[in-house]
């Protein structure tokens, strides 16, 4: 018998392959873990529809559960309600900042903020370079104080 709380703990070790400091729990994509008669079902919601990381994440979940002796794992993809960056944990936001990515700013979905705090020096004197950064979920900004470019995880 596998306890749901154990599964959640194991899943915290599964990282976003493109942002390895962020676990899938921190990212808020694990929506539910169910366990009926020996079968564990993990419900995840995709971040971006075309995100290539989703396939890798599903595989990593299966591998992780198997490593803990759960061979009957099922991954269920739920589209609705649509994933939002509001589901990202506070710990996840801090991990992003420490990694050099400015975390999402609530309420700016669809329209990017003119300036977001620089994750390196904290300056607010920053500007948008491009709405699309190294991946679809990020935009590229530049800090006018420390002169470094940085990624901003967009509100979604």
């Amino acid at each position: 018998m596998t306890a749901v709380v154990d599964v959640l703990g194991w899943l915290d070790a599964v990282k976003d392959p493109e942002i390895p400091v962020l676990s899938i729990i921190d990212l808020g994509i694990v929506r539910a873990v169910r366990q009926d008669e020996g079968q564990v079902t993990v419900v995840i919601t995709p971040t971006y529809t075309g995100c290539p990381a989703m396939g890798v994440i599903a595989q990593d979940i299966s591998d992780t559960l198997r490593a803990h002796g759960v061979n009957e794992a099922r991954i269920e993809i739920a589209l609705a309600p649509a994933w939002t960056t509001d589901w990202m944990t506070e710990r996840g936001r801090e991990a992003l900042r420490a990694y050099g990515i400015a975390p999402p700013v609530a309420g700016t979905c669809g329209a990017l903020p003119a300036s977001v705090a620089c994750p390196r020096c904290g300056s607010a004197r920053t500007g948008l370079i491009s709405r699309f950064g190294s991946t679809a979920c990020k935009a590229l900004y530049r800090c006018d104080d420390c002169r470094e470019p940085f990624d901003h995880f967009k509100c979604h």
Partner: protein
Amino acid sequence: MSLFDHVLSLGDNALILGQQLSALTGHGPVLEEDIATANIALDLVGEARLWLSLAGEIEGAGRSEDDLAFLRDEIDFRNVLLVEQPNGDFADTMARQFLFDAWHEALLAALCASADPRIAGIAGKCRKEALYHLSHSAGWVIRLGDGTAFSHDRMQQAVRNLWPYTGELFEADAGGTALIGANAGDIRPLWRQRVADTLARAALEVPADRWMQGGGRRGIHSEHMGRLLAEMQHIPRSHPGARW
């Protein structure tokens, strides 16, 4: 149009435009735009996968998203003619994108109210991405339209050339009405408003509504479509079942 055809049409629009933008990867005018168009292409292909999977499910004949994308002939594609128009120069690419995005986001917003939870779910997810596409393409229409005399003329010409392909976006049919509980023509005022506002900010004229092209949604495509499909489908058709 049946429900199958309608969902197919949603998937085909995203697939064909995604394929067009993918062709620009490595050829963007600047690095940031190269990355942006690749990212938008990725979103659109992701959206196409969801609609085509659902279309296969509705059809119930065992066709997968890949079967529908790669093994259908031109006459069976249900995309609007706008998305198959060539990439042209950067003004053409961005004008096409803007005219599409302004409609696409409004359509997805309407589909969020669909009585079918599968359709509402896909629309709700993709709408968030479409909002970023729209702000990106509108930004370029304004920047180029209100830029130099040269960029202004190129953007005005692009909007003028693509205008006859915008009427088809609003062709109403019973299938679409059943899907969104409203007529496709109902989103036209919002689209017109968005286009008029952005073109005004871009110092561009809204072209007059004259003859409008149509037929894409019935499988009658322009001459660009055959070559596009040949490139997109060549590998899976020449090597059936091939895997990476």
